[in-house]
């Protein structure tokens, strides 16, 4: 299943803005889990739950801590969507 990467990137950026109030395509580009005050481990769970809800996907618990950068989140969403897995 082909995935529109631009759409995924836009969707991920929107979730980051909504949950963490950061602009990952602008001033906050390159932030990682733990590198920005808004993105601590507690907020990370809220972020992942929101990403899952936005894209209709679900990540196993062992993968969640690995979604530590915007790129890693995007890639993980793309992989889930491409495999057709929820």
């Amino acid at each position, binding site marked *: 299943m082909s995935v529109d990467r631009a759409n995924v990137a836009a969707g991920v950026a929107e979730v980051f803005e909504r949950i963490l109030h950061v602009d990952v395509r602008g001033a906050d580009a390159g932030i990682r889990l733990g590198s920005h005050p808004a993105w601590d481990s507690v907020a990370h769970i809220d972020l*992942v739950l929101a990403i899952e809800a936005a894209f209709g996907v679900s990540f196993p*618990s*062992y993968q*969640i801590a690995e979604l530590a950068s915007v790129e890693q989140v995007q890639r993980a969403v793309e992989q889930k969507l491409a495999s057709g897995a929820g």
Partner: protein
Amino acid sequence: MIVRYTADLGVEVPEALRKDVLGKLWYVAEGLTGLELDAARADRVHFELATPEDGVAAEARARMIEVAKRMVAGYRPASYRVLAQLKGPGVGPGDDPHPGLVASSDLHHFGRGRWGLGPLASDLVELLESDLHSVGLDLATAPHRFPTLIGADTLASCKYFESFPHSLTFASHLREDLGAIQSFAREARVVDGHLAADSSAFASPECLLSPAVCFHLYQWLAGSRLTDTVRARASGKCFRYESGGLDGLGRLWDFTMSECIAVGTQTDVLAFREQGLERSLALFEAWGLTLDVHTATDPFFVDVYAKQALFQAAFDLKFEASATLPYRKEPLAIGSFNYHQDFFGRAFDIQSAEGRPAHTACVAFGIERFVLAFLAQHGTAPRHWPAAVRDRLPESA
């Protein structure tokens, strides 16, 4: 007459979630005297009421459905990892040690969740505490003693009210009101094992009975700017009310916890937990225990269950030592190794030597559970016990 009711939950409860869901269902109504999942259907429970009444049953049923749906909705299979496995010299005959210990006056049941230990079990507790003292020394901890009462403000800072409200035990006293005190003195009586008295005579609780030991240390260090990582050890009585689940030494309302605690930099605290785990494995081995150490999550209350459990699982915050109980299918958690990131550092404004919110970890043992696991696995006759334990018993044992 016992009336058995049925609740169709509207969702199938996954096997891994059944214990936690059932544990929470006990809290939906007073007077539940029996509660079990249907043997064949994962979406059905059966329950009994002390006073059978259809209206009460209907309300209980509705709440059970609500609880089950909420917990199942947020559930995702956790990938628990086994970190260590120990196989003791031999798992014993498999009998539940409680009846024999009661018969020999080595155990006394005072009431729900309240058991007294006689000489045999107490000798084991003393040996265990001596060994835990050594573990504490190896971890370079300093001894502390804390109150059994804990301030409501401390538990609020720990967010305990929202995480585990169902397990709280409150402490109160009569209000400083002469009339109320005199009325209590005249009228208070015990009915069906409960104190019957005018509840308006009781003061609003400023303290509760502490559910854990380490919270006291965080409160003690509140506002501190640490120059080095603090390492402490303490033991104390802890209280967790488990409706429907209070069951022998394995699930006490009033139990003893022994903890080693670290407060400081992330590096130091994670190393502390790792060292605590290594030393504990050596202890378990010396006592000949058969157990697993695995990642785990706490039994959070319904409303926060899914998110908090996911948080613990995602960041490997909790390891649990679960010992085999030969007479039961389910193992028993006898110890845990917990990393709290900077949660308590932030909650209590404790700064590490790095100038950041302190990280914390604790290595905790449930003393009575440890003893139960030992007796269940090795039996109650000292001649069958591992020499490392048997040879240190007092001569009178």
